[in-house]
């Protein structure tokens, strides 16, 4: 008698990544994790400097370097006041926001894919973003003065409602089955989309632009304190997820196997899902529905670094942060003075890359 079914319905084995199957990959040791993360952090720092110096109201790159250098020596600044204002009240908050959102979406993508044991899972497909979008659209169309933080507050509420719906509906006696959860998310997402379209079709045209930008994902709406809040949520979430990295490795092999190897699988799963959902909600509430990051970045890094989450989680956070900072810089500068929604950039990069992955999988 089979009491739980564990066959994935959408059986998409991961991409066959290796040309040479005997190519050795080192185990994730503390040293390797630190090394990889240090490299990624260096890339991230460089991208941040580029992002600061790029865009309207230019801060010259060399000036910026000189500024950092003189700051570290404790001497006079070389930036003029205008540059300083741009740096501290425009660029840095924006970079902090992009980095936090990118890291949050990547982290939750990693976690959802592992726990649902399905490489297609990500916060976007699961409907969490859809819930947030509905909240935000309602806020934009009828005003959001009645909740704290306004539109982001409503978006966060929407994401929470989506999460509760998804987990509430898919919960059964035997716990969450990955496929039920995924399908529930897809359906709820579709339902939210219908509600959003309904709301949009009733709205006046002057609000449509804001709605559209929100749905495409846009980082220009957030304020400084929101960036800080999302950043703190991401850091806290990362610490919780990272502390469960080893159980997460085992959960990929299935809940029963994880238990047989000594992990309290049900508890670990609950904490992981809740944490990933909440950092997603926080990120989406200020950024809109930025797609593909949660899907593509975990894939790419699993391909490069392997599936061990002790390495994959911090690497994904850093890489996701770097990627969104870069994408946002492109969105700000490509068609300047017009700003593109950053979701357009991530989708333009992400979709072809994912198609390439799918194509390579066709063996």
């Amino acid at each position, binding site marked *: *008698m*089979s*009491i739980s079914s*564990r*066959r*994935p319905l959408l*059986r*998409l*084995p*991961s991409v*066959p*990544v*290796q040309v040479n*199957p*005997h*190519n*050795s*990959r080192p*185990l*994730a*040791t*503390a040293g390797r994790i630190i090394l990889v993360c240090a490299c990624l952090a260096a890339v991230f720092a460089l991208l941040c400097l580029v992002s600061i110096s790029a865009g309207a109201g230019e801060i010259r790159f060399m000036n910026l370097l000189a500024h950092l250098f003189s700051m570290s020596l404790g001497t006079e600044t070389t930036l003029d006041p205008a540059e300083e204002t741009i740096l501290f009240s425009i660029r840095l908050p924006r970079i902090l926001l992009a980095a936090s959102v990118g890291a949050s979406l990547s982290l939750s993508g990693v976690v959802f*894919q*592992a726990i649902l*044991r*399905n*490489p297609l899972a990500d916060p976007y497909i699961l409907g969490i973003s859809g819930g947030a979008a509905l909240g935000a659209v309602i806020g934009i169309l009828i005003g959001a003065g009645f909740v704290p933080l306004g539109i982001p507050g409503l978006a966060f509420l929407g994401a929470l409602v989506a999460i509760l719906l998804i987990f509430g509906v898919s919960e059964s006696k035997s716990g969450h089955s990955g496929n039920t959860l995924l399908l529930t998310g897809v359906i709820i997402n579709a339902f939210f989309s219908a509600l959003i379209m309904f709301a949009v079709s009733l709205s006046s045209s002057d609000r449509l632009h804001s709605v559209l930008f929100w749905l495409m994902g846009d980082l220009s709406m957030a304020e400084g304190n929101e960036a800080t809040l999302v950043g703190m949520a991401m850091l806290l979430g990362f610490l919780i997820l990272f*502390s469960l990295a*080893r159980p997460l*490795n*085992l959960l*990929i*092999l*299935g809940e*029963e*196997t994880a*238990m*047989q*190897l*000594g*992990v*309290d699988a049900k508890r670990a799963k609950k904490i992981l899902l809740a944490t990933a959902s909440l950092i997603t909600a926080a990120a989406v509430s200020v950024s809109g529905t930025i797609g593909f990051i949660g899907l593509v970045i975990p894939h790419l890094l*699993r*391909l490069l670094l*392997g*599936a*061990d989450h002790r390495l994959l989680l911090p690497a994904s956070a850093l890489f996701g942060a770097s990627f969104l900072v870069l994408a946002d810089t492109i969105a700000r500068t490509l068609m300047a003075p017009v700003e593109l929604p950053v979701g357009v950039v991530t989708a333009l990069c992400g979709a072809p890359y994912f198609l390439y992955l799918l194509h390579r999988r066709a063996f």
Partner: protein
Amino acid sequence: MDILQVDQISFSYNGLTVLSDVRFGVEKGDFLGLIGPNGSGKTTLLKLIDGLLQPDRGSIRLNGTPIRKMKRNDLAKIIAVVPQAAPSIFPFTVREVVLMGRTPHLGRWRFEGAADLAAMEGAMKKTDILDLADRRMNRLSGGEFHRVLIARALAQEPHILLLDEPTAYLDIRHQADFFNLLQSLNGEQGLTVIAVTHDINLASLYCNRIALLKEGQIEAIGHPGLVVTEEIIQAVYGTPVMIDCHPETGRPRVTPKRKEPSDNGNR
């Protein structure tokens, strides 16, 4: 004293009785085969022994301690399970998967040390998968995959090894290799082995004892020669069988009886 005591356990699922009043003991170093028709409760019994399910009544004790009072981590230091091969979705390497067997011996933040790497290597040597170490799990054949799962279980350094249909997807060579490996682990290292299997002949050939389940109850338990008899097998499986002796060991061997072909010409 028995290392494992199954004491009058009953279990029902959705109002359906799966096991009732099952009791037996397993001594250290035993090699027990659990056989029985489909739906007789073999796999459920295995899950109860491993604490994945809780019995409605009765108790299961490991070295005298009821397992429901044990932490998962402590249980995993004593019992290791070789599951039926599950599909692998993410590209862990063989070495990483075997090393996961060390989990119960590690704290949350500790990385694997020299002792863990040694246990991993020993387990891989025993199962002859050292040359697969860097291969990815989704690139293995059924037989290789299975050996990796055994290696993982061995890296756990358990006292009891539980196996669920270990040979279901293996060809005859891998079946023999597999049971020979179990035999040597059992004989040379005193590992207690409990295997659920459909293959009565393999069980009869290798196990010290066989427990035959029927409709959630133990119909017979003992030496294969006492359990695998025409009378008992026919009664439990409800189909006529013939039994002879293995040419080498003299253990009983089962063959289904063919229905007489009807004589309307097509054989």
